[in-house]
């Protein structure tokens, strides 16, 4: 048996029945990483020694009868989630040597379950990018077609899961950064409701939009991972105090009577690849065959989403990234002997071009005389987009849509035109603006063999409905069983 190919729930079952040990499982994952990582380049930091120690500890816990769904399971972590004592770069030169002195809330949750951490995964710098080409260190390749991007910004996380280099991973989603790479790499990616998972220790990009989410091989595993990381945290004042439901319990429920909303604006969007449209339409037929009914809904402000998002997110980023000044941590330009010069030198050397571009956009949009025209206006449009969803969810339980307008782009294709890259987020970023959850599940392949994802969106805290729908779809199809030819 090739242990690295297991899903989290399969591995858990074998660990529980003492058919395998976590050390065996972790060794298999380490071997797999050593075999395929040279082609994929998903890891920025490997933590194999720690992982084997954690595996040992997990085996001891299991022997003592203490097993949870993630005990002994090797996972990967996007490199903007702070890991105590382990370098956390955010894919940026400015944090190249940053070693967090604390764990993010989600890391504490994973450690409490005796999970195993195989390493830190590549990403676009500060999560700004849709292809992983904006990482300061390396370009991750899509396991399904090595000349293609894995998507972004959690491209390393999606590629590592798709390539069986970890059993599951955490990413973060500010405008689609979990769902879009999941779609491009043929894995399951969930963005939870804003506030469902604490952002404590998640390096901030756009605080009102950021949310940590799991990437996994199956919907069952997605539910297990969300269960592990969800919950209230008083260190994040936007973390919600609502109780966390049992997500695995909803998986088996049938779809009879489920109303699936089809936004009429979504299927006419310019740039929607016909292969994606056709795969998503087939997926909707599959859901109808399972007892769901479709209803047309309208999200009239769809065409304004990208513009509103690309004002709000860079504005928040320009403020959040002001902390990188070469004083308390991160790169410092030591040639400069004057304070302001030192700030400017450190930031200009430390940030890559896409991050600088977004800081400039955000600074401009927030600057005197422009604030009302840009940030103020975008925040009002945000209200209208959130209202669109509220109204749509009175008519339906979930909305079905593509996760991305095209399959993965070829590497190098989108680097010259930032606006073109931004426009490709059209299906994902409305969920961040409205704070609602969304999941991407594999629903087909392009003629080049690249994965296509079906995105399901729900109202606030409707993760159970998303899991149920995605699970029934997954059980009725074979897409998630196909592995990339590595």
């Amino acid at each position, binding site marked *: 048996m090739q242990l690295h190919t297991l899903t989290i729930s399969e591995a858990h079952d074998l660990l529980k029945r003492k058919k395998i040990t976590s050390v065996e499982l972790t060794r298999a994952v380490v071997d797999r990483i050593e075999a395929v990582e040279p082609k994929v380049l998903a890891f920025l930091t490997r933590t194999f020694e720690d992982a084997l120690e954690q595996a040992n500890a997990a085996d001891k816990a299991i022997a003592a009868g203490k097993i949870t769904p993630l005990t002994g399971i090797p996972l990967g972590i996007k490199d903007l989630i702070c890991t105590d004592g382990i370098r956390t770069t955010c894919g940026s030169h400015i944090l190249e040597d940053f070693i967090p002195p*604390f764990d993010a809330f989600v890391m504490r949750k994973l450690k409490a379950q005796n999970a195993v951490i195989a390493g830190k995964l590549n990403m676009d710098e500060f999560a700004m990018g849709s292809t992983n080409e904006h990482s300061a260190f390396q370009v991750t390749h899509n396991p399904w077609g090595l000349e293609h991007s894995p998507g972004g910004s959690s491209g390393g996380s999606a590629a590592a899961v798709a390539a069986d280099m970890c059993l599951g991973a955490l990413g973060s989603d500010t405008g689609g950064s979990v769902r879009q790479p999941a779609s491009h790499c043929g894995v399951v990616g969930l963005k939870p409701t*804003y506030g469902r998972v604490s952002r404590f220790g998640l390096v901030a990009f756009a605080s009102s939009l950021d949310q940590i989410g799991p990437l996994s091989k199956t919907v069952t595993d997605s539910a297990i991972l969300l269960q592990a990381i969800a919950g209230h945290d008083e260190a994040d004042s936007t973390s919600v105090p609502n109780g966390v439901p049992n997500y695995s319990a909803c998986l088996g429920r049938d779809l009879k009577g489920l109303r699936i909303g089809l936004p009429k604006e979504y299927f006419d969007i310019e740039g929607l690849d016909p292969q994606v449209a056709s795969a998503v339409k087939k997926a909707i037929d599959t859901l109808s065959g399972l007892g769901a009914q479709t209803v047309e809904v309208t999200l009239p402000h769809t065409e304004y989403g990208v513009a509103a998002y690309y*004002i709000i997110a860079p504005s928040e980023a320009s403020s959040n990234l002001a902390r990188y000044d070469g004083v308390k941590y991160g790169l410092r330009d030591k040639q400069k002997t004057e304070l302001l*010069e030192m700030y400017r030198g450190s*930031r200009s050397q430390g940030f890559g071009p896409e991050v600088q571009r977004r*800081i400039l956009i955000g600074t401009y949009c927030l600057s005197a005389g422009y604030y009302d025209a840009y940030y103020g206006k975008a925040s009002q*449009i945000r209200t209208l987009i959130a209202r669109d969803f509220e109204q749509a969810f009175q008519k339906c339980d979930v909305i079905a849509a593509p996760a991305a307008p095209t399959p993965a782009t070829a590497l190098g294709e989108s680097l010259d035109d930032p606006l073109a890259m931004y426009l490709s987020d059209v299906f994902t970023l409305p969920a961040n603006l409205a704070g609602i959850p969304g999941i991407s599940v594999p629903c087909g392949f392009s003629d080049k063999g690249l994965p296509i994802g079906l995105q399901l969106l729900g109202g606030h805290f409707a993760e159970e409905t998303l899991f149920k729908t995605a699970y029934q779809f997954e059980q009725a199809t074979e897409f998630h069983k196909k592995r990339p030819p590595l």
Partner: protein
Amino acid sequence: MKLTKEQVLNTARLARLDIAPQDVEMFSEQLASILGYMEKLNEVDTTGVAPTSHAISLTNAFRQDRAHEHLPRDKALSNAPEKDEDGFLVPKVI
């Protein structure tokens, strides 16, 4: 829409970024194209629409006011580019 060289340089100054002379033109064009696209929002009448800053609004996120452990000084200083025993060192300010 066009962004002048001065506008780009002024924004960079506010953002504490140095832009290399050869990059000013590139940023000017890219920012103009992106901000030009944003003008699409003016098609929408937003009179009387309240702005949203957070999609899930919580009020009064209180917690108990009790003392708990904070990062010890040596750990807080562990990533400092320059430091002494007590704090962060920066270039002379005055």
